[in-house]
């Protein structure tokens, strides 16, 4: 398989927080989850892959090209933040249409594309509303529609399901998998939810204190290893989940 993203010896210092010596390959058409506690550096890793930061050591490449050498507008990355990052001064329609307008797509084609996306994500009824009036699930669908309408090579999502209720989460898992089949893009998302990572991802990277300590297939997530921090993290979480149940 070809590597969509290659990260080599990547380190970055942000204030007192440091992401240390990350090495990772993410393959074409793969769904990859980055799993870790709050503050472990998941979001920083995701933003680094997207090229948010310019001062770091090591290398991050997308399809063989250094990410910071590709202008942001030409990276073809879809990014969905935890709070979805919708443009508050635009309606849902204008949010989804934004990238198409930038591409100077014909108005009729734009309308058709937005309508298609809205149908796939079941948000036809909210197209005229502003983000401030939407529920968490509607915002997430809008953010996804906005990112996917441009057929990105890669979709990056920062804890995209954390603000949703359990029922909406379940339906979104299905929907994202369906979207992955339709659009065939590489999906990278960060989460602290083991269940979510296992359901959604092909492979899972485990972050502990700013380091990527392990990469596993999702079915092997709970296999014991020699890294005590990972074992503690996995056991602690699974025990917590069982207690909660």
């Amino acid at each position, binding site marked *: 398989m070809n590597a969509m993203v290659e990260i080599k010896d990547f380190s970055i210092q942000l204030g007192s927080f440091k992401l240390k010596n990350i090495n990772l390959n993410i393959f074409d058409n793969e769904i990859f989850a980055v799993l870790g506690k709050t503050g472990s550096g998941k979001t920083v890793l995701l933003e680094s892959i*997207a090229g*948010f930061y310019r001062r770091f050591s090591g290398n991050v490449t997308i399809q063989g090209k250094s990410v910071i050498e590709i202008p942001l507008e030409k990276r073809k990355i879809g*990014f969905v*933040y935890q709070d979805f*990052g919708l443009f508050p*001064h635009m309606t849902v329609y204008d949010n989804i249409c*934004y990238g198409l307008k930038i591409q100077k797509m014909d108005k009729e084609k734009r309308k058709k594309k937005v309508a298609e996306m809205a149908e796939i994500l079941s948000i036809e009824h909210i197209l005229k509303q502003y983000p401030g009036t939407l529920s968490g699930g509607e915002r997430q669908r809008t953010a996804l529609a906005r990112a996917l309408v441009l057929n990105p090579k890669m979709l990056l999502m920062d804890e995209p399901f954390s603000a949703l209720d359990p029922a909406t989460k379940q339906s979104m898992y299905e929907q994202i998998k369906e979207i992955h089949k339709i659009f065939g893009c590489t999906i990278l998302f960060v989460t602290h939810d083991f269940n979510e990572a296992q359901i959604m991802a092909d492979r899972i990277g485990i972050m502990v204190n700013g380091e990527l300590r392990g990469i596993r297939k999702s079915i092997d997530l709970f296999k014991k290893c020699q890294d005590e921090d990972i074992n503690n993290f996995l056991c602690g979480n699974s025990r917590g989940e069982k207690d909660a149940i």
Partner: protein
Amino acid sequence: MKERTHLFNLFEIISIITAAVVVVFTSVLILTIIVRGFPYLQEAFLSKEIQFSIKLSLYTASIATFICMFLGVPTAYALTRTSFPLKKLCQIIIELPLSMPYLVLGLSLLLIFSSDLGKALKELGFRVVFDKNGIILAQTVVNLPYVIRFIRTAFQEVDERLEFISGSLGASKWKRFTTITVPLSKNAIIATIILTWSRCLGEFGATLMLVGATRMKTETLTTSIYLNLATGDNGAAMASATIILIISFASLFITNWLGRKNSKESRMKDVTLR
């Protein structure tokens, strides 16, 4: 628990009383001008001198505001969205005039434009000292640091992640600026324009140093107040002050109206934080 609630209420009461004192004091200030100036207002509007000062004030304040925005917006963008050597020092230099008395700013302008440079500019047809160009320059120099500070704060409040997302959707830096940064700081920009215009209208110290106070030549509304008070014509002075007050009221009203008109509907609109 009961005691905490009691303390909180006491704090609320004290804050309301303080606000009431401020409101009464400000109202007295405003009413004094209106009551003393209103009887002379009709006469003032018919006076050629006042008409001249109104026109000159509106003209110079509008041009100075335009120049302030023209220079201030790109400067604020550079300070918030770009990185360059000695940026912090540049910011300190730009905002230094905020803490300087306007008379001192006017004096430095006078020294610059009375020098050989000023004389050379005068020979090229650009008169500053004792000319209305000087009024525009003084108003610009005094207000530019405020404009940069206000716009810089407005740009800082725009979530940079939204600009990043906009870029990831294909927008160039210019498009990100025009479609995300500017619309999201629109209210602050409009408020800055109106407040700058009002401040230009009320500028006096630096203008007096640079262009002096000459009737029907460099006589803005504030200069008119000064000249009329100096010659004992208190009525005309009060009338000029009332006109400035009316213009200030109008600009404040427009600022608030635009702010309310542009506020987006939100699920939280009916929620009061307790």
